[in-house]
C-alpha cells in the first residue's frame, strides 16, 4: 500500500478538472438533482411538524421547531454523504466502458472518489443557501453544544467514507446481474427507515431501532445529524464513532473481496 502520494494527488487534481468541466456543461441536471435532495427532507419536515401540531405541540420530545432543525441538518448531512455510484456502475458494466477504466494503472475507486468530492464542493454552497432559506421559513431550534459541534467534523467524514465504500461495494452487484434497480430500491427503502431520513429514530418502534443500531445506515446519516443538534450524550457519541469505525473496517474488507470476485465475472462475460 505505498502509493506514491504525488502521483495520486495528480490523478485527483486531473479528475477534479474533468468533473468540474462536465458539471458546467450539465447545469440543469445539477438543479434537478438538488431539487430531489431538498424535496424529500422538506416533505418529512412538513409532515412531522403537522404531526406535532396535531398532537398538542410536541411528539416524543420533538416540537415543530425541533423537527425543522432535524430535517434541515439531515438534508445537509445526506447531501454530503450521498453517492450515485450504483446507477453509474450499472451503466459502466452494461455499456462496457469499465474495460477502459480497468486499463488505467490506478484503482478505479480513486476517480470515483474525486468525482464525488468535486461535485459536492460545487453543490454544497447552493445547499447551504437553501438550508438558510428553509431556516428563515421554518424557524428551527438549534442548541449549540460546542463539543458536539467539534466532534461532528470527524463524524461526518467517517460517515461519508463508510457510505461511499458500502454503496461502491453494492454497486458492484452490476457484475452479476443486469437488473440492479430492484436491489437498489431495497437498499433505499432500508435507508429511508433505518437511517433517520423518514423520522428521527427515537420516534420509530423499538425493533426498528435495534436493527438500525446494527446496520450502517444510521451511522452514515442520522448519527451525525443528532450529534450536531446536541441530542446525544458523550457516551452515545463515542458508541457511534465506534460503530462507524467497525463499519469502516467491515466495508473495506468487503469491498476488496467483492471487487476481486466481480472482476473475475466481468472478464468472463466480456471475453
Amino acid at each position, binding site marked *: 500500500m505505498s502509493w506514491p502520494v504525488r502521483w495520486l494527488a495528480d490523478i485527483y487534481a486531473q479528475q477534479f478538472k474533468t468533473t468540474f468541466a462536465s458539471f458546467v456543461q450539465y447545469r440543469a441536471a445539477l438543479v434537478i438533482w438538488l431539487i*430531489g435532495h431538498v*424535496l424529500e427532507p422538506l416533505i418529512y419536515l*412538513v409532515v412531522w411538524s403537522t404531526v406535532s401540531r*396535531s398532537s398538542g405541540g410536541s411528539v416524543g420530545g420533538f416540537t415543530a421547531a425541533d423537527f425543522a432543525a432535524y430535517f434541515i441538518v439531515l438534508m445537509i448531512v445526506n447531501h454530503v454523504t450521498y453517492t450515485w455510484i450504483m446507477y453509474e456502475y450499472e451503466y459502466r458494466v452494461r455499456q462496457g466502458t469499465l474495460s477502459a477504466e480497468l486499463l488505467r494503472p490506478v484503482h478505479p475507486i480513486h476517480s470515483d472518489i474525486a468525482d464525488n468530492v468535486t461535485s459536492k464542493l460545487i453543490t454544497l454552497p447552493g445547499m447551504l443557501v437553501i438550508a438558510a432559506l428553509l431556516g428563515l421559513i421554518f424557524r428551527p431550534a438549534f442548541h449549540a453544544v460546542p463539543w458536539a459541534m467539534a466532534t461532528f467534523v470527524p463524524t461526518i467524514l467517517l460517515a461519508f467514507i463508510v457510505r461511499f465504500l458500502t454503496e461502491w461495494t453494492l454497486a458492484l452487484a452490476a457484475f452479476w446481474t443486469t*437488473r440492479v434497480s430492484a436491489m437498489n430500491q431495497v437498499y433505499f*427503502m432500508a435507508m429511508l427507515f433505518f437511517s433517520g431520513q423518514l423520522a428521527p429514530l427515537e420516534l420509530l418502534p423499538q425493533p426498528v431501532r435495534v436493527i438500525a443500531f446494527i446496520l450502517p445506515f444510521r451511522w452514515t446519516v442520522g448519527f451525525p445529524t443528532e450529534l450536531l443538534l446536541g441530542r446525544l450524550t458523550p457516551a452515545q457519541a463515542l458508541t457511534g464513532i465506534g460503530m462507524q469505525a467497525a463499519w469502516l473496517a467491515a466495508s473495506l474488507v468487503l469491498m476488496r473481496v467483492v471487487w476481486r470476485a466481480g472482476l473475475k465475472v466481468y472478464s468472463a462475460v466480456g471475453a
Partner: protein
Amino acid sequence: MRYLRLMLVFFRVGILSELSYRANFITHLVESVMELGTALAGLAIVFSHTTTLGGWRPDEIVALVGVYFLVSGAIRMVIQPSMERLIEAVHEGTLDFTLTKPEDAQLLVSIQRIEIWNVTDVVLGFGVLGVALVRLGTTVGAWEAAAFAASLLAGGVIVYSFWLMLATLSFWFVRVENMLEIFSSMYEAGRWPVSFYPRWLRFMLTFLIPVAFATTVPAQALAGRITWKTLAAAYGLAVALVVISRAFWRVGVRRYSSASS
C-alpha cells in the same frame, strides 16, 4: 367514437410490443409493491404518534396514497412515454410521419407510446383506494363518489395538458427533458395533502406544477370535504389548460420545420 377506436388500437399495439419483454412485468410489480409498502409503512409510523393529521383521518390519507399511485401510474404508462417520444421526434425530425397522417396529430402524439407494465401502479392504486373506501365505510355516498370521479377526471386533464405544454416547448428549446424530470420529482410532494405545506409551496404545487388538483382534491372529494368552489376551480383550470395547450401545440407545429432544415 372514432377517436376512442383509435385509442384502443394504439393501446393494443402498445401492449403487444411490450409483451415481448415479459420479465419486465415481474420487475415492475416487485418495484411497485415495494414502493407501496414503503409508503404505507411510513404512514403507519406517522399514525403511531397521532390519530389525525392536519384534520385528515388515517384512512383518508391511505385513500390519498391510492390516488397518488393511480395518477402517477397513468402518467408513467401513457403520458410520460408519449411526451418523451414527442420531444425526440421534434429533435430528430421524425414528427413528419405523425403530421402527415389523416388524424388529429395532437391525439396521435399523446398516445403514441404505452409502457403497459406501469399498469401495476394503477392496479395497486385502485386496490389501496378500494381498501381505504371499505374502511371509511358508510361516509362515502353517491355524492362523494361522483365528486371523486369528476375531480379525478379534471385532475387527469390538468396533468395531461401541463405535460403537453412542457413537451411542446421542444419546438423552441433543445433541453426540455430536464423540465419533465423536475415535474416528476416535484410530483412526489403530492403524496401528502397539499394543505400541509407552507403557502408558497402550496401555491407552486397548485398552479406552477399542478399536482394538487390531481391528488389532494380527489382524495378530499372522497372524504366529503370538497366544496363546489374547489370543484369549479378544478374544472376552470382544466378547461383553461386544454385551450391553452391546444393553442400552444398549434403554434409549435407551425414552427416545426421538419427534418431537412
